């Protein structure tokens, strides 16, 4: 118990005060707590249990110890899925972060217009499924407008989703298109926390915009960028919708990302225990990634404070 809390307890000696508002508080948190236990805590426990069983969804689950984890480590497709996901995350995060920084700087230095911000944000509010279908159409190998454009400038038509080398970058860039405005807005919010006096001082010293960006904006933005990176990497790692709608993991596993592979194993092949083991591995992996990222980027100590 913290010191102020202890003092409060000493000061207030009546029994009603000692328990504070315990009874009404319990009544107010009860429904949410029920939801939390039933749909977050219980499935976490149960998911781990399923990962130790042979379970086809149809019959009862049979305990098999760590067999699923052994199978997972020997499964070439599991490692392929992780690799493909890493490729996706890399392309997605790098393009998204660089573009978002560019857009954020432009917005920060040029305009606060709500219309500009609204347009930049718009794709983020449209469903993944919608975005995937529109781009699937625009990138159609025969009559898609992008290929029409490529053709006009003398580049060969490309089957963006059907080509093993092109499919993953295509899916990744498509999601960059959807998320970049949102990421840019988060970064703009961070930029607004930088005191304007820093820019005034830099301007007085005759610093160019380019120099201000590298010497003022970027260093002071580090905590915000760290948070943005953790959030986008974790979100990006769990890509599913776009793959499910466009490529279904193909061609030849080129886009079979980990969440799609888990979905496929659980609901198409009924290897529910195996799928649970993989999803537990993803859970551990994501917590690890978030921890390492936060340590590396020292998100908590800001240069401003």
């Amino acid at each position, binding site marked *: 118990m913290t010191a102020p809390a202890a003092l409060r307890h000493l000061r207030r000696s009546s029994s009603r005060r000692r328990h504070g508002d315990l009874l009404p508080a319990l009544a107010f*948190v009860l429904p*949410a707590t029920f939801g939390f236990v039933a749909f977050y805590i219980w499935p976490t426990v149960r998911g781990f249990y399923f990962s130790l069983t042979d379970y086809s969804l149809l019959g009862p689950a049979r305990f098999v110890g760590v067999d699923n984890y052994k199978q997972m480590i020997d499964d070439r497709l599991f490692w392929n899925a992780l690799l493909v996901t890493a490729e996706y995350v890399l392309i997605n995060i790098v393009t998204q972060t660089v573009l978002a920084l560019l857009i954020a700087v432009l917005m920060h230095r040029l305009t606060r217009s709500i219309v500009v911000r609204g347009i930049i944000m718009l794709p983020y*509010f449209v469903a993944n499924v919608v975005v995937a279908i529109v781009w699937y159409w625009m990138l159609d190998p025969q009559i898609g407008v992008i290929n029409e454009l490529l053709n006009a400038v003398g580049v060969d038509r490309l089957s963006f989703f059907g080509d093993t080398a092109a499919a993953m970058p295509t899916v990744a860039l498509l999601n960059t298109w959807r998320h970049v405005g949102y990421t840019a807005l988060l970064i703009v919010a961070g930029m607004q926390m930088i005191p304007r006096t820093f*820019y005034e001082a830099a301007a007085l010293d005759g610093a160019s915009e380019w120099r201000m960006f590298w010497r003022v904006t970027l260093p002071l933005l580090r905590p915000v960028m760290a948070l943005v990176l953790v959030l986008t990497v974790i979100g990006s790692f769990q890509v599913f919708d776009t793959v499910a709608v466009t490529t279904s993991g193909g061609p030849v596993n080129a886009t079979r990302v980990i969440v799609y592979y888990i979905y496929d194993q659980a609901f198409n092949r009924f290897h529910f225990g195996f799928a649970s083991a993989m999803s537990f591995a993803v859970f551990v992996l994501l917590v690890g990634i978030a921890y390492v990222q936060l340590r590396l980027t020292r998100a908590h100590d800001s240069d401003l404070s």
Partner: protein
Amino acid sequence: MATLQGFDQHSSESVKASAAAMDGAARRRGVNWGRVAGWVALAVIMALTLFPFYWMLRTSFSTTRSLASGSGDLLPVDFTVGAYRRVLGLASPQEALAQGGTPASLNFWRYLMNSVIVATIITASQLLFSAMAAYAFARLRWPGRNKIFFLFLSALMVPPIFTTLPNFVLVKNLGLLNTYLGIVLPSLLMTPFSIFFLRQFFLGINREIEEAARIDGAGHARIFSKIIVPMSSAPLTTLAVITYINSWNDYLWPLLVGKDESVRVLTVALGIFRSQTPQGGSDWAALMAATLIAALPIMILFAIVGRRIINSIEFSGIK
């Protein structure tokens, strides 16, 4: 309200800051080519952002049969509203076939209604129960309050796919597959984000009004419903819209538990429509019309309350 004012302040400050920087630059060089280049870059980015939406519109008013020959045309090819008639079940099979569409009925109204039902139930229920919990976490004093709150928050770290598998088993065992209840159940009572978001705002409400009401003998239910909720109408609206949009856009969960026609939501229906490629290529005009109609309610919501959502994203950092 406090946050909105805070942001106006910020914005006027940054406007002043960039204005000051601009003056300095302008004095040195006359025309500031850097700013011109910046605006050109921003215009290109906005055009790239908007083009797919235009292409959706352009294709949806085209005749599917003619799309192949006019694939590069910027305007609709053989302008028609036939795609919308097909999607909304108004076209006869002959008419649909003549335009290169599928004669099968799409049941689009059904999916639209299902999406509305699911998103509305989730939003109303989740908001009420999350607001109640946020009230207890922000305004009431009780032992273990912060520990439980941070436990709730830690659930943000659990990847959805991990809880999705056992939740599917639960819904299946309860016999709720292909029911509205099954689709809405996991999001019905709370999400860690909703509670976190509302708690932040509830913490900022002035205690004096609450204390006065308490002296007048108002109970917690009354303080919650007559003081806290009305005073938080702005953040509540924002959260309602965000929740509605997220439920509307959700794909994996309704795909797992609600594939049946009777409860199929729009995202699931669009995915199935996309994968059912009829002979001779997809009915792209109808697919784009359907996609546009599916996205339209969200775009209208965004046009109405977008400013508020954008401000709150800048405020809370995460969604």
